[in-house]
């Protein structure tokens, strides 16, 4: 037991210890100041500006900044869609895989351009090396860079005193990619390969099975010497390809789309507990750093710490809940004492859908981190978590991905809640709402509310539409309440731009591809519009002096109010749906 507790502690301590110095580095990079990579990378940076015809000193107002962000995303969407449709004609396709169907290509392109990485396809059997490396990996880099860019535009708006410029979108994206994401991804790739993850462009390996199996008439697997066997299979596949490099950035950029269908549960993507540590820290590293960057940027680190505290409390609560319920397991698994669930010589607990090398500890940590961040990669199958263990990830996503959340977007979502809290707290005590020395007017409030309720609205709409279609039943892997949880999880994952799944759910149907695709698009771009409007409005407001009447936004009381506000909005919108799925399943299980 102490070993397990120690491991939880190591993960959390390392996360914070690495994020703090990274936050200082990110601020320097985004301000164009000198860093350790200046000599090597600034020449590259300047070449990029020349290639894309951008003047790096040009300052953009909020409209220009927004149009640039939307234009870049639209071009990326079209480009990736084309790559996926034309995959069969493109090079680097040793398995000879055909292009995707239009609805699957749409869903996949949207999914990667919105930093969701929902996977309606299975990577190793549906996508060529070209699509993986030149299509998906590129979006894995640029979508978090867009998140950082928009976040810094908001920061600039918050501290600006009347100056309308929010920075230059193209410069921000280039710097975030070159100085932050590429160096970190290289480090993570090397550790991954060292631990065992493949990185090549070879054909898939075919290996000899030690125990051949038979296949019967109906295609079921039987023993090789079974009389019903009509065919013997004595070979297995080992998928190859540039896996480690894609896995590194999928974690760092809160993307989450696995090279393989089973994502980081595959020992090829995540071979050892050490690779698991590095990848799991990568899930939250940049989102946590962004929070500290915020404190540094507004020159009041207590503001960053307060937001961090609120997020960390929610993360801890989620982690503890998942870990406790997964370690307890279920009566169905214990089978009246026939199965040993203890910790002696094994991880114990609910091992269904979990890998032996990770056990309950590493799997619980990952589940909490990946849904707190809008990452969505998995190292265990969430569909096979206990009812409550599987409900916590849904809640983390449904809160709007604001518990650290996606790179950039998590924090700007949370700042929406901060403004909402300031406003409501101000009403309660009869003070004018102010944040960081700026008055909050109705216009800012409207944008903050959009930030807070976009995710839950999209989730409920998406789950509703899918539940109306009788054909959705065919997509379910489990009957009854757990089946509804599968639908809810899919809608939540797309609506939160997370991308993880109750993976038994077959999401590759035209209707579901479209519904989830539209959800992902709206949840990515509605908030980006709101943030740019908010930044544009804030930067024109003059600073007002702090007085005795100003509500503190950095003390424990404010942290408490902020946590309460996040939970309140989440509970009010999601409780009925959760009651029908995981809560009902848990009650049925124990009663």
């Amino acid at each position, binding site marked *: 037991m102490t070993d397990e507790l120690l491991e939880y502690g190591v993960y959390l301590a390392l996360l914070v210890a690495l994020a703090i110095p990274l936050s200082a580095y990110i601020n320097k990079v985004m301000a164009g100041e000198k860093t350790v990579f200046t000599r090597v990378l600034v020449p590259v940076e300047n070449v*990029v500006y020349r*290639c894309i015809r*951008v003047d790096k000193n040009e300052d953009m107002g909020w409209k*220009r900044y927004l149009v*640039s962000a939307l*234009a*870049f995303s639209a071009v990326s969407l079209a480009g990736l869609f084309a790559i996926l449709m034309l995959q069969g004609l493109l090079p680097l396709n040793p398995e000879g895989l055909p292009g995707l169907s239009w609805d699957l290509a749409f869903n996949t392109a949207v999914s990667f351009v919105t930093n969701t990485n929902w996977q309606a396809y299975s990577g190793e059997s549906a996508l060529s090396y070209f699509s993986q*490396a*030149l299509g998906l*990996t590129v979006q894995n880099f640029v979508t978090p860079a867009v998140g950082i860019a928009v976040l810094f535009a908001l920061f600039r708006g918050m501290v600006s005193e009347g100056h309308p410029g929010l920075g230059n979108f*193209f410069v921000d994206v280039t710097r975030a*990619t*070159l100085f932050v994401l590429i160096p970190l991804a290289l480090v993570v*790739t*090397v550790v991954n*390969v*060292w631990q*065992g*993850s493949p*990185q*090549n462009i070879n054909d898939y390996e*075919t*290996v*000899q099975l*030690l125990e051949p199996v038979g*296949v019967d008439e109906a295609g079921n697997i039987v023993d090789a010497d079974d009389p019903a066997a009509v065919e013997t*299979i004595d*070979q*297995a*596949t080992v998928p190859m390809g*540039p896996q*480690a490099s894609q896995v590194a950035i999928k974690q760092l950029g809160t993307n989450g789309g696995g090279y393989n269908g*089973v994502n980081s*549960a595959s*020992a090829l993507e995540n071979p050892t507990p050490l690779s*698991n*540590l590095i990848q799991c820290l990568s899930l939250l590293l940049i989102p946590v750093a962004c929070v500290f960057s915020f404190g540094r940027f507004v020159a009041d680190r207590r503001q960053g710490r307060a937001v961090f505290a609120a997020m960390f409390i929610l993360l801890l609560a989620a982690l503890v809940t998942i870990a406790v319920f997964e370690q307890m397991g279920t009566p169905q*698994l214990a*089978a009246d*004492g026939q*199965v040993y669930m203890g910790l002696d*010589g*094994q*991880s*114990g607990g*609910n*091992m269904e*859908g979990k*890998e*032996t*090398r990770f056990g309950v*500890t590493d799997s619980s940590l990952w589940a909490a981190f990946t849904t707190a961040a809008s990452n969505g990669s998995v*190292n265990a199958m969430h569909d*096979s978590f*206990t*009812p409550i263990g599987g409900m916590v990830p849904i809640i983390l996503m449904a809160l709007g991905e604001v518990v650290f959340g996606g790179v950039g977007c998590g924090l700007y979502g949370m700042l929406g809640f901060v403004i909402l809290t300031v406003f409501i707290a101000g009403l309660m005590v009869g003070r004018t709402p102010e944040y960081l020395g700026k008055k909050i007017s109705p216009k800012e409030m409207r944008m903050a509310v959009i930030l807070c309720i976009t995710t839950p609205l999209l989730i409920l709409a998406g789950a509703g539409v899918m539940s109306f279609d009788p054909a959705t039943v065919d997509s379910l892997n489990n*009957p009854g309440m757990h089946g509804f949880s599968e639908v809810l999880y899919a809608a939540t994952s797309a609506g939160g731009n997370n991308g993880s799944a109750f*993976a038994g759910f077959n999401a590759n149907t035209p209707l579901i591809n479209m519904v989830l695709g539209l959800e992902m698009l709206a949840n990515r771009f509605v908030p980006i519009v709101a943030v740019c409007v908010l930044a544009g409005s804030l930067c024109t407001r003059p600073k007002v002096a702090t007085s005795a009447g100003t509500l503190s936004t950095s003390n424990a009381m404010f942290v408490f109010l902020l946590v309460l506000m996040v939970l309140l909005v989440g509970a009010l919108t999601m409780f009925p749906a959760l009651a029908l799925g995981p809560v009902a*399943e848990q009650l*049925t299980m124990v009663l």
Partner: protein
Amino acid sequence: MKQARTWGSAALLFLVTTVLCGVLYTAACTGIAQLAFPYQANGSIIEVDGTKYGSELVGQQFSDDDHMWGRVMSPSTGTFTDAEGNDILWYGASNLSPAGDDFANAVQDRIDQIHAAHPEKGDEPIPSDLVTNSGSGFDPHISPAAAEYQVERLAKNTGKSVSEIRDIVERCTEQPQLGILGEARVNVLKVNLMLDGILQ
């Protein structure tokens, strides 16, 4: 005019990042990996006398009495075929709810199968990873408790002594990294290759 310039820059940035993050980054990673860690970078394939017996990282299904059993697997065909069109085996997770009846039945079937093959164990509780599907569907490992549970059966069916079997298991066991990371685990394919005398 400004609009057109913005869209132009956006399109150009898409092309530049495709070269930078798609081509150069992937090439750099592949180069470093192939130079520094060629065994891992090419899939950790166990090759003995020209035959490839599998990857250390991809489990196989074992049900023979003289082989160690791993996690429950659901192998399937149809995902991959070889150059001649023959089916090749591939695996997936069960994704069953551990609170459901389907799961309870699957677990009971597995328990009965294990009890039948291990009469010497009587009513001793079975380690939980031996009766469950893994996350990937091809987990290459099993816990030390699950390996120990099978030692007497393996001794009986392979003609080796219990201590010889324990020695093989020990050689295929990896401890938690740095003392605390992850779980101790036994590589099932390696154990079976040693039991068959293929791997020394």
